[in-house]
């Protein structure tokens, strides 16, 4: 059971959260302008990363908020969690945070 740092509530056990899939996949602003392939990519194409992965979580049994997380899929360690709308921290920022 992971320990997840909700940006609003702090560290809570995974029991309180629901995983929300890959992060930073915005719904196209004008779906009508998308080709079928573009729409299919938006719906179905996801990365399957070995390493650092940006993903969505929702603190369902807590504040109810969605947020994003950077997780290393090989170790399950979170390198950062951040709010919706924010960009993921850069490698340099991550290094600075752990140094």
């Amino acid at each position: 059971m992971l320990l997840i740092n909700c940006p609003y509530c702090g560290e809570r056990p995974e029991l309180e959260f629901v995983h929300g899939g890959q992060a930073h996949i915005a719904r196209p602003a004008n779906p009508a302008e998308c080709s079928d392939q573009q729409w299919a990519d938006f719906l179905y194409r996801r990365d399957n990363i070995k390493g650092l992965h940006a993903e969505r979580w929702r603190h369902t049994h807590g504040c109810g908020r969605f947020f994003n997380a950077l997780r290393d899929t090989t170790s399950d360690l979170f390198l950062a969690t951040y709010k919706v709308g924010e960009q993921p921290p850069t490698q340099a920022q991550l290094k600075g945070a752990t140094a």
Partner: protein
Amino acid sequence: MSQGLRTASGGRINRARPVRFTFDGRELRGFEGDTLASALLANGVHLVGRSFKYHRPRGVLTAGSEEPNAVVAVRRDAARVTPNLRATEVELYEGLEAHSQNRWPSLELDAGAINGLLSPFIPAGFYYKTFMWPRRAWQRLYEPRIRAAAGLGLAPEHPDPDSYSNRFAHCDVLVVGAGPAGLAAAQSAAASGARVMLCDEQPELGGSLLGEADPGASLGESGREWLAGTIRGLLANPRVTVLTRTTAFGYFPHNLIGLEQRLSDHLAQPDLKQPRERQWQVRARQVVLATGAIERPLVFPGNDRPGVMLAGAVRTYLNRYGVLAGERAVLITTHDEAYRSALDLRRAGATVTIVDARDGASSELAEAARREGLTVHTATTVIGTRGRLRVKSVQIQKLDAHGQARGATERIDCDLVLMSGGYTPSVHLFSQSRGKLAWSEGLQAFLPAESPERVRCAGACRGVFSAAAVRSDGESAGAQAARDSGLTVNTVIGEPQPVQSSGAAAPGDLPQPGGEPAAKAFVDWQNDVTSRDLLLAAREGFRSIEHVKRYTTTGMATDQGKTSNLNALAIVARQLGKSIPEVGLTTFRMPYTPVTFGSFAGYSRGELFDPIRTTPIHDWAARQGAVFEDVGLWKRARYFPRNGESLHAAVARECQAVRSGCGLFDASTLGKIEVVGKDAVTFMERLYVNGWTNLAVGRCRYGILLRDDGFIYDDGVVARIAEDRFHVTTTTGGAARVLAMMEDYLQTEWPDLSVWLSSTSEQWSVIALQGPRARQVLEALVQDVDLSAAALPHMGAATGRICGIPMRLFRVSFTGELGFEINVPADYGLAVWEAIHAAGEPHGITPYGTETMHVLRAEKGFVIVGQDTDGTVTPDDAGLTWAIGKQKPDFVGKRALERPAMHSPERKQLVGLLTAQPHVVLTEGAQIVLDARATPPTLPIGHVTSSYYSATLGRSIALALVRAGRSRMGQTLYVPMPGGNLAVQVTSPVFYDPKGSRLNA
């Protein structure tokens, strides 16, 4: 029988407290402080079980949780039988009743031992090779027979009467293992003020020291005092939690460790009010693993006879339990440490012959052994043993300069064989932490390397063996862990001790004459895997150790290969011509030792297994004799039988009442979401397929929600309560996921919208009053709402009061009749329900359940999401295109609906089906085919989604999804059933009142 092999004095048993117990019905005596294994050995009982495959006689091999052989069932009563317990861990109590396993009719005379004679015909992979064909024979013949002959122990036949507890805990430093390393680590961490948890699987702290003749003495000067003082200090420290009889069985991500604490298994009279076990989930900032090491057996022919034991185990039985396991012993070793066992046995009065496979064992210990007058054969191998139920002799042979078994042979008579191939560090938990392991040439073992978790190892589990070094290593690890958990450590933190070379020979099997693989040289005792089986697997082309494991089943039994893995690996590696690290390790799976199901279930049993949701009207319905059904977690009244009515009769009566008079239905389980805010209408426009801007306040609309892939996700009536307020209803099962989807879009796609979402499912009681007389019933109770058809037409909504209670009143119908849904605050639900029921009595009001609701809606062709749809159904497939707002530029799912495949005429479409024989009710889920004579296999063109007998229509009706269904009106299709293909006619899905005049009344 007397405890003939008990020493005169010594050990940690309480000789003043004799304990009676039985083994296979035989009455025996031991002492308080014994394990079942030590007490059996004290009574001269070496034969304790039969092996899994060959039913070979087996004895106690070890003195700890790694035991593969001495696996027994302990019985308190018919319900409390625990199979597959290791006798080496079972603490003796007065009246303990233990049974051997895997034998028939008795342990001494086992009919299954014929398998041993057949062993040349039961090689590795035998089950896979022999029982392949035919499939039916596997199910009916082979599998039951194999399960009866093999298998480990029997499950109890009654429900478990014990209770089990769960607990979460947090600490700065969790120390696993209370041997010298763990004690030192816990003490040094606690000295820094850390909140420490220390757990150990044994009933007593001390770990390996408990097997010493003088525990603590080996730690050096003042070692005894240090040991006693440390234990006292830890027990007295309020910031330290010490858990004995507690196994750390699993290492989960982010330093979550599962602990299994056995609370009452050691008690003669457990208090049934107290839990039997407690499972802890400990979240530790830092973990110190001090899990020790497990002695490796040697692989030689006949190494599995009762009386063949690990050298360290024999020493533990002698020193800790005062049991001399035999009087004429042979020690077979490739490792120095085992000499201690020989010397201790000698001092206790046994004769000991040492057979060391290494050339010129010249360590201090070997010299000491010779000085003590022991015979030491070096450069000597073992080529066989004898003795049916107990080892009687050992056959040895001299090795030549090349390590080949070519020299003179000799037979040594004995009643006990000790063996030792060195120690394998217990890296199980470390490996479960996703820690990488590194091969140590000097130790001939895998050692912990890097882990992503905040964990460090101390002592023997990382290759530090000498007692004094182990203590320093533990102190260092404990202080470092305290520091890394964020505490200030004021003392100087020592460095971890260097890994020591053990002088052990390589793992694997001992050399045999002619270089041939030995027969009956066991590697995995519990699963009966020999070195020959492993060689066969390698010869047959298995290269991956994971495949070899599955093919031979080595390391797969309840002991998970604790004693066998490294030997198996070495044998396979040699055959493949690779090094051990090249072959690699199999996964160390949790649990470390078996954990009871009860402890995982914890409190979640019986009524507490799952929450039960009931409506405010539930008890009323129960008093009326309603039969309930489970819908998700909800209990819903399915029908209200009167005077022993059948389901069929009750539903027919209830349907008739609604169609001709009025019926009352508890719809409180409907999901309800309040959508509020200045952008509420924009939000609804973007989410649902319907148009909402033009929905006036005081009106309802049937809303459809798609996913962005275009398929129906949920549906429900939506009422506009105010310009900025919608009362959205969802399906009973969809409430939570619809709210989650709304939150997702609102928070992540449209955070600019000013909208609040609140679940109100539990806040409103919903009472559906349906039927031609519904208005008359309601008029008596409602004063401030005009209920006339003109003022409140179909799909009208109003707020007002009923019986003085505030309500939201929707004129909606899921039955096709004039109908109202009365929403009142849940606390008033029952009172209003009873008032309506009383007011309706002159009109023959009839409560009805979900079954009648289903029939009535099916007569009208109303779909139920999740029954008539399955996640691949578009609004058009379901005949609901009319609901889509045509002018909307976008809504969730719109773009996907424009894909060509989504309006292919060949899609499955919702239709009605009428059977040729009106009284035949189709089976829901049945397939539909084109051809009257079709026999399987044939391609179905659709399936039945809903099917009922309609009392109103006097015949059966069904809804179905059929390929190009709307183009098949009037066509005859067929539903294949066991009795033959049933002819059905395709019709409109609306069977009753297609013009809708009744619900507009």
